[in-house]
């Protein structure tokens, strides 16, 4: 059968209509475009962490983490975020914890923080080392102390 309208013609007509339409469409409200893009990039990553080699005691923390944090956002957001330093996790967890209605007690918050710090020192080791190398001597010492505290508490348990 003879082709009546070629694909190229169709494409051309579609482009012409799209061009006309684009002029009429108003620019979307892009108030927070940068943050949105950043968060969306995080959320595209894996949604779980392989914790089979983590200390037994920490597995409970992972449960708590997956349960509390998914109340408001995908778990892939914190899992793939660019936070790695203990200080960053401390602020991030507290920021979320203090949101009205979060349902995260301060002891829950502490467990989630400990999980994230431990996890960063294993799964995000390269990123963490990179951040430590860029930090000032004072920040580095504080980060290493906070990290040691968590590792000592969980390693081998």
């Amino acid at each position, binding site marked *: 059968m003879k082709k*009546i*309208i070629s694909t190229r013609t169709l494409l051309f007509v579609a482009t012409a209509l799209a061009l006309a339409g684009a002029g009429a469409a108003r620019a979307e409200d892009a*108030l*927070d475009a940068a943050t949105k893009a950043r968060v969306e990039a995080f959320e595209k990553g894996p949604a779980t962490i392989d914790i089979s080699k983590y200390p037994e005691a920490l597995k409970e923390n992972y449960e708590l983490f997956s349960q509390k944090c998914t109340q408001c956002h995908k778990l892939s957001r914190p899992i793939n975020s660019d936070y790695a330093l203990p200080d960053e996790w401390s602020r991030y967890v507290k920021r979320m914890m*203090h949101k009205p*209605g979060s349902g995260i007690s301060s002891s829950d918050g502490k467990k989630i923080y400990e999980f994230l710090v431990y996890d960063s020192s294993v799964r995000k080791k390269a990123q963490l080392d990179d951040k430590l190398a860029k930090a000032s001597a004072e920040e580095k010492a504080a980060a290493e102390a906070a990290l040691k505290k968590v590792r000592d508490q969980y390693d081998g348990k």
Partner: protein
Amino acid sequence: MPAMNDEPNCCRPPDVEPTAASAPVPVWIIVLTLALGFLGAVYFDRHSGWFDRQVFTPYSSSVALASYQPKSGAAALAARGKTVYENVCGICHGSDGLGKPGQAPPLAASEWVTKDLTTLARVPLSGLNGPIQVAGHDWNLSMAPMGAGLSDADLAAVLTYIRTAWGNQSSAVSEADMKAARAAISGNAPSAADLAKMTPVERGHEIFKKYGCFQCHGQDGKGGVTNPNAKTAEQVPSLIYVADGYNKAELIAFISRGERVIPRLNPNGPEPPHFMPKWDGIVKTNEMSDIADFLFSLKPKGEKLDF
């Protein structure tokens, strides 16, 4: 060499000219022509100025050309006001001035806009807390003093615009009117000399009041204003723990950018009426630093988390 006479002439009758057979115009050419014509018409409509002799490159239409002409009087003021309006006020009150249910009352045909200028002039400077009546309907919301950081000229322009747009027919507003309104409400505000003597935390507190942060976040930053269907327990968040959750740079970045979209408690429910405005360009850089210091000072003494 073959003899010319020997060539047979069997296949071509001597007196008939060769002709091409007729064929229909392909459909794709018709469509292409129509599409090109359409595109041309759109381009012409946008860029020609409809044969206006004064419209030529780089001006694309008589409207664009007119917008470059020096203007005077109320029309010029209103044109400037429209720009300010779309950037600052239009997000809530709408480009059509009709407001949004549960978010902002209408300005078109609103007696608050068209009648008494003294009250109207104070609204962008001080904000406005409901309940109020607008055109016979009750509104119980609160507006931050979104205009506190604008110049008198911009405020005069934007008020002139809302008093003359959308069928409103009230008098223009002058810079002097705005100066008077600012003076009338500045009785309690500290002078620049007083501010310079204060500590950053004290200054931050004055700025917190100046921009009306308290209208949503409470006098002492403890929150409390309800925000129906907001995921944050239907409240505007308290600010007393920002010291835990943000460092100074992060906090200033957050205030600058605001949070236009507030997550909903019930995803199918209405949009929460209150949101964090974008303060970038309104609150000045040095004020941002002071306000961050003030907010950090709100953390209850003695409360400490061990992580």
